[in-house]
């Protein structure tokens, strides 16, 4: 027996007898196996965000650890670790992300996670790896929030939890499967409580500014050059979903304004306006209520119908009539908006804005400038001039195509309008705005999405990147800002029925497969995709998009009034219920009564006999009880002998196999005896 002193020595005392000290602080092999699998599962979704360097280091560490696990290799020397750390730092630096960006943080986290793997020796190290694993699972949700990823991460969560469970099980007996089962059970039982906390825990405004994920997200940008919007049609990624309260507006009315490009610079358009509208004429009658669930854009602009306002605490109206969020949209953002009727008397625009909205480069596109001046001189009003421009587009051989020729140089708009005559929405809108501005009429390019597809399953509208569109607005003192879509003149189908209807077959063939399916070329695949979208939509609606505004509304409905006391009470009641359910499951049936089936069968018999005065004594076996009763009544041996033998055999002879048939026979024998006793005795 080892001395007691040796066994309580610190875990890292290398001189301590290995047999006595080691076991207590070693990581069980079961845990190691689960940790390695769990860690791989946690790192996999990061492959998108990480540089190849970090992935390589991670794989190398995994290989090293596997070899340690198999007993082939030793723990790495110090210089090996130093090289690996250097490789990780170089890897983070080489990704080109800022030192304090979220990507850099994630890279460092995954590197630490991987490096700890080869360093891990005792239980505390194992706990560090487990905690890092949980952390990495959570951080991944800053980059993506899809339902599928969430389901995947539930699996990773269970794996990591299983590793923690296995650390506390009897090491010689533990196997991965029971650990996994218990971890899954624990997670399942934690879910009711999680839901209660998720619903009720007060959502707060950010406490300080944090680095944001990089803007590698597909979507509209705040500067547009001809060709940019056409590129977006290559993507079938979702831009946002809309739930409309009431009838869905027709496709031609679904102009989702996002950006207003007021500044013309270097042959392109820029959207810079972020100022709040101060005296927007409110309130006016409500025309349409809707809610938008915007996918992460990493930008602040929001998409809304014209003349919309929102009461969301984070959303404000800009000077150019758009909705803008106070913070960049990093996860699905849910906001309600209301479209109002057009104001009767439009607000006048300031001189400053008039100048901005009529600015062009006097050197560029001289032919368009000349045309604009000629048109206003001929037609007089902006409206008449617009009509003439649209007529010209209709009349003359203009073409709508995804892949127009490139129009180089400063005079690109001239090249499009007078020579190429084929282009995408932004070509037409740009040329129109340029013409109007040449005539001294305030006009601006507007970027956003047009149309969208209604998902019949849940009735919401899906707007995808290929729905991106550009149109124009001009200002008239009578009308206010008036929307003009020159694309409608060249390709009316685009406005009425969506992109696919407007594209030539050559253009359609150039689209990626999934976009093509979504646009409606494949029916079956399309319906599956719509179903998935409907599920994803509900996920966004209730989980990802659940923020302080949604919470406030929901709690208002649930509690009547939202205040700290009510929320506190609701948390207590909900938490108590959530935990109570688990307690019931755990403690209920803690002591199941395993009575022998023969005893159970006999109990009915002896209770019936007690009514006749024959009470079974506690120490009597069933056979002894029958024997005593039979003796008292004076039954013959032949009448009870077989039953007594059978009782003893079934109860006490483990060597005899028996089943339902024997049990039924025994019951009928007992019934017969009961009958005989009931009528054969006067007691």
């Amino acid at each position, binding site marked *: *027996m080892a001395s007691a002193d040796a066994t*309580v020595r610190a875990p890292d005392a290398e001189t301590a007898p290995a047999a006595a000290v080691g076991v207590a602080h070693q990581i069980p092999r079961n845990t190691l196996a689960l940790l390695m699998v769990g860690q791989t599962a946690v790192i996999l979704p990061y492959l998108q965000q990480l540089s190849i360097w970090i992935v390589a280091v991670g794989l190398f560490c995994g290989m090293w650890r596997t070899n340690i696990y198999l007993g082939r290799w030793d723990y790495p020397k110090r210089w090996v670790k130093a090289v690996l750390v250097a490789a990780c730092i170089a890897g983070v630096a080489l990704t080109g992300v800022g030192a304090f960006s979220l990507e850099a943080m994630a890279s460092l986290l995954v590197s630490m996670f991987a490096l700890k793997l080869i360093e891990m020796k005792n239980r505390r190290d194992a706990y560090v790896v487990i905690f890092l694993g949980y952390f990495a699972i959570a951080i991944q949700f*800053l980059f993506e929030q899809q339902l599928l990823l969430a389901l995947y991460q539930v699996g990773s969560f269970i794996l990591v939890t299983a590793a923690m469970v296995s650390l506390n099980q009897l090491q010689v007996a533990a196997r991965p499967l029971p650990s996994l089962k*218990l971890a899954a059970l624990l997670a399942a039982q934690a879910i009711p409580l*999680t839901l209660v906390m998720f619903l009720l825990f007060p959502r707060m405004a*950010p406490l*300080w500014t944090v680095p944001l994920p990089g803007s590698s997200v597909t979507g509209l940008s705040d500067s547009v050059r001809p060709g940019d919007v056409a590129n977006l049609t290559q993507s079938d990624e979702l831009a946002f979903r809309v739930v409309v309260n009431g009838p869905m507006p027709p496709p031609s009315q679904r102009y989702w304004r996002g950006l207003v490009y007021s500044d013309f610079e270097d042959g392109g358009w820029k959207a810079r306006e972020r100022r709040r509208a101060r005296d927007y004429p409110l309130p006016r009658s409500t025309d349409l209520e809707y809610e938008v669930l915007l996918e992460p854009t990493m930008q602040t602009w929001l998409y809304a119908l014209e003349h919309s306002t929102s009461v969301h605490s984070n959303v404000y109206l800009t000077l150019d009539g758009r909705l803008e969020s106070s913070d960049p949209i990093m996860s699905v953002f849910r906001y309600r908006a209301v479209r109002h009727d057009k104001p009767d008397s439009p607000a006048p625009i300031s001189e400053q804005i008039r100048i901005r909205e009529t600015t062009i480069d006097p050197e560029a596109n001289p032919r368009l400038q000349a045309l604009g001046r000629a048109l206003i001189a001929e037609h007089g009003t902006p409206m008449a001039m617009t009509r003439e421009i649209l007529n010209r587009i209709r009349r003359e051989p203009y073409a709508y195509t995804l892949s127009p020729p490139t129009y180089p140089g400063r005079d690109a708009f001239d090249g499009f309008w007078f020579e190429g005559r084929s282009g995408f929405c932004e070509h037409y809108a740009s040329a129109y705005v340029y013409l109007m501005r040449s005539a001294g009429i305030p006009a601006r390019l507007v970027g956003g999405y047009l149309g969208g597809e209604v998902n019949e399953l849940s009735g919401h509208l899906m707007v995808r990147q290929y729905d991106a569109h550009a149109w124009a607005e001009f200002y008239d003192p009578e009308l206010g800002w008036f929307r003009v879509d020159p694309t409608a003149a060249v390709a009316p189908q685009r406005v009425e029925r969506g992109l696919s209807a407007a594209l030539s077959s050559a253009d359609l063939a150039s689209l990626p497969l999934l976009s093509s399916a979504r646009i409606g070329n494949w029916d079956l695949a399309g319906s599956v995709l719509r179903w998935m979208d409907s599920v994803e939509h509900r996920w966004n609606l209730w989980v990802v998009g659940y923020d302080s505004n949604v919470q406030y509304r929901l709690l208002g409905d649930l509690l009547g009034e939202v205040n700290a006391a009510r929320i506190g009470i609701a948390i207590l009641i909900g938490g108590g219920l959530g935990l109570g359910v688990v307690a019931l499951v755990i403690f209920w049936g*803690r*002591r199941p009564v395993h009575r022998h089936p023969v005893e159970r069968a006999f109990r009915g018999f002896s209770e019936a006999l007690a009514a006749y005065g024959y009470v079974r004594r506690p120490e009597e076996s069933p056979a002894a009880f029958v024997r005593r009763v039979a003796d008292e009544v004076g039954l013959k041996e032949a009448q009870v002998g077989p039953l007594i033998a059978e009782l003893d055999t079934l109860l006490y002879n483990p060597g005899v196999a028996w089943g339902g048939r024997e049990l039924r026979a025994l019951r009928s024998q007992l019934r017969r005896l009961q009958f005989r006793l009931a009528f054969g005795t006067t007691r």
Partner: protein
Amino acid sequence: MSDLPLTGDAPVARRRELFVGKRFSRWLDRRIPPKDRITLSQKNVFIFPTATGFAFGGLVALLILGAINYQASLVYGVAFLLGSLFLVTILYTFRNLSGLTLELAGARPGFVGEDVEISIRVTRPEGRAREGIQLGWPEGILQWAELTGQVSDTVRLYVRAPSRGYFNPGRLLVETYFPLGLLRAWTWVDLDVNALVYPRPVFGDFPRSVSGHRDEGQLIDPLGSDDFSDIKSYRPGDPVRHIIWRSYARSDELMVKQYASYVEPRLWLTLDGVSGDLEEKVSRLTGLALKATRADREFGLDLGTVRISPARGEAHLEQVLKELALHGLR
């Protein structure tokens, strides 16, 4: 039954510090009175987060902070799932100890300075298995009880015996970190253990006892001089005093008387037969008893107050050792 010497995170010495507090000890005596059979319930099981548990709490707080700053619903989700996991674990950890019955299964005597073996039977209710249960005395090593495949397990614990007599090692620590190691549920039970501790043996030579009676004795020392035993012919070297001169006068042959001592053949262990103070004497007698048994000699014990007639064998030895262990203590 596993004999893996497993300890938790905290060194035993630190636990003892916690344990030794007099006031705490008195409070424990009131709360969990000594009994030879104790069933654990909410009355006598304590539960508190471990250091790992507090770190886990820190992780949850960190994640909630991140969720607030990034306004990320799913990060809230992960944080709440972890928090709920912690709360659910409280029930699990408590349930793991609650309902267990502990009883003394036996104590094997030992010598002072060595380990006494004390067996504790741990029985769980039917139904759910219990995992990761450790028990032990602060002075000894924690052992794991295996209660997954079986309803009952007997755990052998070893405690260093400080002095002879009946030894109560104090309160037994029963603890578990199951299932996640975030919480520790534990209890201190007093099972009224009374393990017999024999004196530390000191080995020496058998005393040459010279008393005895002819009728009981056996010739052991032929060179003794107490009693006449035989006559034989003289050989050079025989004491001249023993020559029978009358016989020489008759037969011209030198004959010598032979004397022998009737040494007590059955060894008597007495306090007077050994040197030192009482403890040393008892130790020496213990050593002699062991030595005699090993040599398969009969021996008896006479302590004045107690007298055990000579015999041999393990049972006799145990009886003698017990008397030696308890001598002067009752």
